[in-house]
């Protein structure tokens, strides 16, 4: 059963055709990777899923519901969480607060004038937040300010912020960009554990090592068009993919 289905999506920026009749089906409970050369339209596509951009034509259905015309906060409330290429976190708050906020948003909805009760009384929320911080290996730093973290830790924090919402769909934009090999491997392990919990993931990634160790299905985007969509083994051998993506070099 597909949880996210994208049909004939087009997006133009002025004269530039960023997305050209894109079709995509993401199966529930799988890891779906979107790869493609720079400027292929991967981030544009992701932005269409979270309400940052509105496609010119086409439909985006999540869990049977159209995402078009919804604001980012409304889309998140339907169960879509996103990790950004540059971590978007609450810099001048503690890690625990960073994870508490999404947990509260999940429970209380997009606005609640909850001005009388103290945050410290939210025991369940705090437990969930601690658990997610522990999942990504940041439990010891829960009282530190987010801005003090290294870049890799910031990404992990952002991941924890998404996980605490128990999303139906997790979108990751280059989760290992700029990471060392060791950090990348840690991140792969972490993402594998998340995938094993049954979270559906869509991953944009440049690092083929990451893609082939995680993805169950790969879509290849080039110049705004999906030129191939298949399981990793067959994508590896696809001549068109090699031509478009690697200029003929062997994967």
């Amino acid at each position, binding site marked *: 059963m597909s949880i996210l289905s994208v049909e004939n999506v087009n997006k133009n920026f002025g004269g530039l055709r960023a997305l050209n009749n894109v079709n995509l089906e993401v199966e529930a409970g799988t890891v779906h990777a979107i790869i493609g050369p720079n400027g292929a339209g991967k981030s544009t596509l992701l932005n269409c899923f979270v309400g940052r951009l509105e496609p010119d034509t086409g439909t985006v259905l999540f869990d049977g519901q159209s995402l078009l015309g919804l604001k980012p906060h409304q889309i998140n409330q339907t169960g879509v969480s996103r990790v950004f290429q540059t971590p978007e976190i609450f810099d001048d708050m503690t890690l625990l607060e960073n994870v508490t906020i999404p947990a*509260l*948003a999940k429970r209380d909805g997009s606005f609640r004038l909850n*001005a009388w*009760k103290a945050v410290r009384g939210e025991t369940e929320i705090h437990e969930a937040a601690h658990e997610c911080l522990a999942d990504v290996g940041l439990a010891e730093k829960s009282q530190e300010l987010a801005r003090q973290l290294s870049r890799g830790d910031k990404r992990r924090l952002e991941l924890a912020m998404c996980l605490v919402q128990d999303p139906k769909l997790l979108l990751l934009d280059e989760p290992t960009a700029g990471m060392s090999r060791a950090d990348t491997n840690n991140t792969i392990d972490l993402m594998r554990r998340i995938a094993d919990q049954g979270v559906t993931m869509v991953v944009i990634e440049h690092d083929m090592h990451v893609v082939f160790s995680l993805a169950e299905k790969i879509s290849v985007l080039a110049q705004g068009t999906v030129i191939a969509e298949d399981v990793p083994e067959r994508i590896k051998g696809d001549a068109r993919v090699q031509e478009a993506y690697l200029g003929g070099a062997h994967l």
Partner: protein
Amino acid sequence: MGRNTTPKQDWMLLIGFSVVLLAAPFLLTPVGAGYPDLLQKFAIFGIFALGFNILFGLTGYLSFGHAAFLGVGSYAAVWTFKLFSMNPILALIVATVIGGLFSVIIGFVSLRRSGIYFSILTLALAQMSYNMAYSVATPITNGETGLQLAQSDPRILDVAFGRDYGAVLPSSDLFGIHMNGYPGFYFCAVIFIACFFLSMRIFRSPFGMMLRAVKSNQNRMSYTGLNVRPYTLAAFVISGMYAGLAGGLMAVTDPLAGAERMQWTASGEVVLMTILGGAGTLLGPVIGAGVIKYFENIFSAFNEGVLTQLFDFLPAFLQHAMVSVSSLFVGEGWHLTLGALFMVIVIFLPGGLMEGFNRIRSLVARLLRRDTEEPEKPDPIERVPEPAE
């Protein structure tokens, strides 16, 4: 103020705050501030700054037009006196509600933008209100004369309850206690304590946490499922209601209202108070309001005679030089002192006076720890929020 406080610490803070405030007439007499007019100002501007801090300190939205709500609150209170009753409680409720309604309108318009554009919009709208008070709104505001009580006012509730003020101009009274002098101060103080308590609850609540998130990263907020606009509008309206209440209290202690309360200089003053004390901290704005009002009273009362006395111990030519230099900074020129003080604070203590207190406290704590030979570990909770941008 640490953010991860325990309920006990919060109660201690509230009790400490109340004790200091209620004892202020005795505590402040030695420094020449123990008289009711000034103490009332401390409480009123403290409330104004507390409310402003909920908007500016938490969300980072710098409003340059908050004096408009102060003025509107004053007019609303005086009108309540004129039309209904001299009872201050009714007047304050009306002032708070009208201040809130007015801030819904201004907030709805100006919160469409953020940063400097938001500040300019609030400034423009407040200046429009100020100018309207002198032009089209004169039937309500009585223009330059200011809105005053008159013996011929209807005061329908007072009349209905058989209260007759005779041939004298009435003053506001709470069931027979007149709201000037010390009773006026204690009335203001009780309301100030209630406002402080509410502000503390907001700071510790999930709502307050979301307001800090607005300041930190609005982008992340919306991708986390939170709608930013109602949060900023709620903060704006709450702070507008605080300002309306403060304006109402001004009218309670002195029942007349003039448009000069709405001028941009008054809006700027509350910004100074908040930053001077420490934006985003619970106590900072209160301290800032106290310091500014204190200096305003002390320094503006100085004149050359006082200065000549002060420098009496110096040789005549030095005395003369000191008097002529320092006289620039007192009396009418006390704003020069305020400006200098503000610059020193912002440059050396960007977190305001609260940052200074916290630094001293951690220094003392470190010295004490060294004595007891315990390993040093900085307390991660004790930190001061970033200076306002």
